[in-house]
């Protein structure tokens, strides 16, 4: 059973076609690093897979579930790390984690949350309002959320931006751990060097069309 199987997914906005006939399958335990210049449709593809929008044409299956009909079941198994941190400014880190995980029907104890925050090294700021967090700290908080939720499918949109080398290493180690744990991961990034150690497959989006590339061709400039 494939973790993700896209069948002819296209997305158009009026006369602009952002995605064109994407056929893509990803097995569990695979990590696909997706390259592509700005406007290539990476975020749109991740949004479609994350059930945030419906493709204009085509459909996908995730873990054997239909992306059109079993949306709630799919949502329970995947997580999207997006540009927005999905946190509330006026809650502190612990409250944000508790709320986000409660919506996923995960109820970590205070100790679990504290441990996760310590692992991403923001345990010292656990009671600070997110309003005062830096972008990197928010990213680390999102990483802590991933660690606690442990979804089967991870969709990561620019996971390394805003992170310092230490944070990027934490992120990469977690991805590697999840891949070893038989999760399926898609990383959309402009920074393939950081993703390379955990990548098992590479692909490229150009003008909305997907094509698989060799791992050796995974380069930052994206020119293949």
């Amino acid at each position: 059973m494939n973790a993700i199987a896209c069948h002819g997914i296209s997305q158009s906005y009026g006369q602009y076609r952002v995605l064109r006939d994407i056929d893509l399958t990803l097995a569990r335990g695979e990590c696909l690093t997706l390259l592509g210049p700005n406007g290539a449709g990476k975020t749109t593809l991740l949004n479609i897979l994350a059930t945030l929008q419906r493709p204009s044409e085509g459909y996908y299956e995730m873990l054997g579930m239909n992306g059109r009909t079993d949306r709630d079941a799919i949502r329970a198994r995947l997580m999207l790390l997006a540009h927005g941190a999905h946190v509330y400014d006026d809650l502190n880190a612990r409250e944000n984690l508790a709320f986000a995980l409660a919506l996923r029907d995960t109820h970590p104890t205070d100790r679990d949350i504290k441990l996760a925050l310590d692992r991403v090294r923001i345990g010292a700021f656990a009671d600070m309002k997110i309003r005062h967090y830096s972008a990197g700290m928010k990213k680390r908080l999102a990483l802590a959320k991933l660690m606690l939720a442990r979804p089967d499918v991870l969709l990561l949109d620019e996971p390394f931006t805003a992170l310092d080398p230490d944070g990027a290493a934490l992120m990469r180690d977690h991805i590697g751990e999840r891949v070893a744990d038989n999760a399926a991961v898609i990383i959309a990034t402009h920074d393939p060097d950081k993703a390379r150690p955990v990548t098992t497959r590479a692909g490229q989006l150009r003008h909305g069309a997907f094509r698989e590339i060799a791992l050796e061709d995974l380069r930052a400039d994206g020119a293949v």
Partner: protein
Amino acid sequence: MTIHRVIRGVQRYQGWVGGGAALCLLAGLYLGLLGSPPDYVQGEVVRIMYIHVPLAHTALLGYTVLAGGSVWYLWKRDPVVDNMCHAVAAISACFTALATATGMIWGKPTWDAWWTWDARLTSFAVLLLILLGYLMLRTMIDDPDKEARYAAVLAILGFVDLPIVHFSVEWWRTLHQPQSISLRGVSIASGMLAPLVLMSLGMSLLFSYMLMIRTQLLYLHRLLDAKKGRLLSRFHAPNADS
């Protein structure tokens, strides 16, 4: 490029519907203006009924079609159905505005006022506001899928709301003033029935004809956009297409 089968059907039958509408309306106009007797109380002014009442009925019919089409869209997610809903809304708004206008013209000689807070006039005004809000909403969304969904939500909720609006306004007016000469006070003489039925039928047919035309219009625009987009992306990414 294939044309949607609904649009094909529309192309086949639109001539009959349009011709039927023209015939019914002409016959209805003849009977209404010349062939029917003036009313005992209202005199010649009663002839406004033959245009006002069919317009109002058709506006309500249009709103029912809009709500039904919206449910249909949410069920099937067929863009043609969305084009139809968009078309219905514009046409119903037009019919509602005209029904209100002719109602006001009827009100002036009968109640000696262009506007009264009569339950029907008020509900029609609210209906018109909802329809205009609907059309405005559609211009505020860029994503066509989102536009269709949100418009459907608004239409369905408005349809649920409308009886409550009418009921509450009617209740409110009867509490505040004795019922004024109601438009319903006109007893329908036998000579009046024929033009009324013909005009109602003609207006419903005209509404269907307009709906067919406007649905095609919106559909063709969408087709044009999609087609242009395909050409554009072929131009941008020549390799990807082969």
